[in-house]
């Protein structure tokens, strides 16, 4: 059963077993506007919690995507290179960035639940 957690920087991580799929939320893609480029890490790279996992660019902005948890990159969504607009069209689905093999599942506890994240967005 997949469970999704969120950060205040608007990343999500969808947990399936010991792997998490990381992307940016619908709110984040809306704030960024049309995504024109996504820079992804290499598979095998070790990410620290809060470290830079990817960079997402719109016409007028560039934002770092931070790793919600520590772990090793096991897959990247290379289809975003040719079709960065997927991030706008389907951020929670086909617009994912990286899959991380979790180093410490305990780190998930510090992240926001779906309801907490939605409440947080309402305050912005």
């Amino acid at each position, binding site marked *: 059963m997949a469970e999704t957690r969120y950060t205040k920087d608007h990343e999500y991580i969808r947990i399936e077993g010991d792997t998490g799929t990381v992307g940016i939320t619908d709110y984040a893609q809306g704030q960024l506007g049309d995504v*024109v*480029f996504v*820079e992804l890490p290499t598979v095998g790279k070790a990410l620290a919690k809060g470290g830079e996992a990817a960079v997402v660019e719109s*016409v*007028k902005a*560039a934002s770092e995507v931070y790793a919600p948890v520590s772990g090793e990159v096991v897959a990247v969504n290379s289809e975003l290179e040719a079709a960065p607009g997927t991030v706008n069209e389907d951020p929670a689905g086909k617009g994912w960035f990286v899959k991380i093999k979790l180093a410490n599942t305990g780190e998930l506890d510090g992240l926001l639940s779906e309801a907490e994240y939605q409440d947080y967005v309402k305050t912005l």
Partner: protein
Amino acid sequence: MRYLPLTETDREDMLARIGVTDVDALFSDVPNGKLLKEPLDLPRAKGELEVERILGRMSAKNTAAGSVPFFVGAGAYKHHVPATVDHLIQRSEFLTSYTPYQPEIAQGTLQYLFEFQTQVAALTGMEVANASMYDGSTGTAEAVLMAHRVTKRRKAVLSGGLHPHYIQVVETLSEMANDEVVALKPDVRATEDILAAIDDSVSCVVVQSPDVFGNLRDLKPIAEKAHAHGALLIAVFTEVVSLGAVVPPGAQDADIVVGEGQSIGNALNFGGPYVGLFAAKSKYIRQMPGRLCGETVDADGRRGFVLTLSTREQHIRRDKATSNICTNSGLCVLAFTIHMTLLGQAGLTRLAEVNHANAVKLADALSGVKGAEVLNESFFNEFTVKLAKPAAEVAEALAAKGILAGVPVSRLLPGAGLDDLLVVANTEVNTDEDRAAFVAALAEVL
């Protein structure tokens, strides 16, 4: 004051509308005692005639290149610029416009930038070019930083044929950024073994051709060795007219090409403003510094142009930008692109041919002067002459005779033991009479 439209009455009315009695009330945030009460100790306003007279006097003290036989080069070159160029760049809509951030009312600038980028790419044989850098020297330093980003290494190897000022600019920036530079020693005859300096720690190799001594260099083997070690080749030129006659760096597998574009469309201006040409392989585009203009369409589907890939730049990326550069050399780019359009490849090829022919004539004639020896095996429009006397003295003596003969290498590299070398340039502006005067005067001085 002719430039200030407000009248005293206007000022009073406006202050009243704002609701203050005195303009100094608007400066109320200036800390106590720091607001100046009296005008500074500088002359008062002057009319146009008087300003022209003052600056005219200063100008008249200088020896203009066009007034004498003139053979000075080494990074800046006197060429003939068609009258059309200066007329067009002074059109108000070009001269007084800003960076094209509002593309709907800046298509003039954007289209010529797009044309410029295409011209530079074609000339250098590269896939992409940017909308220009300040000049060749700063462009070279930026190219080195770009290579460091691409290779994730921080050591540059500079050829001894690179213009000494360019070397110093790269060294200054690298020292500040804690990057390593290996500058090979001055290489007058293009015999250095730069391949030996390339290993897996090197980010880039910077080679100039024609080099500062005028030699043409074979870049291909350097590119091959660099690539075998995961390093980039940065090819530099200071005389863009040479590209009308010689194999372009792109055809020799250079990764980044930087050049000084002053020769086309731009005056000597005592060193600036000039225009830096910057081109690269397209796979490195996101690491490029400077503005890029790209094609797109407007809301009605018509072709138009915009600045693009701006996320590389400082106004968005701030401390993670590829460069801190904010301007380009807009008007110098325009001068370049108009002159290049007037030339076309037919005109550029011919211009290059004449430059080379003139330089060959001069080299042959100077070789006949006792105490002068041309050192170059190959050259385009500039070469190095070894003299029997210190070159600086010779240049001064010739200047006293009304001939500006060239650049003593000691001017660029004092204390390098190269005091007997003179770098001599010869372009289309020099006549047979100029050359004859130079040769005769040199024979007298030596």
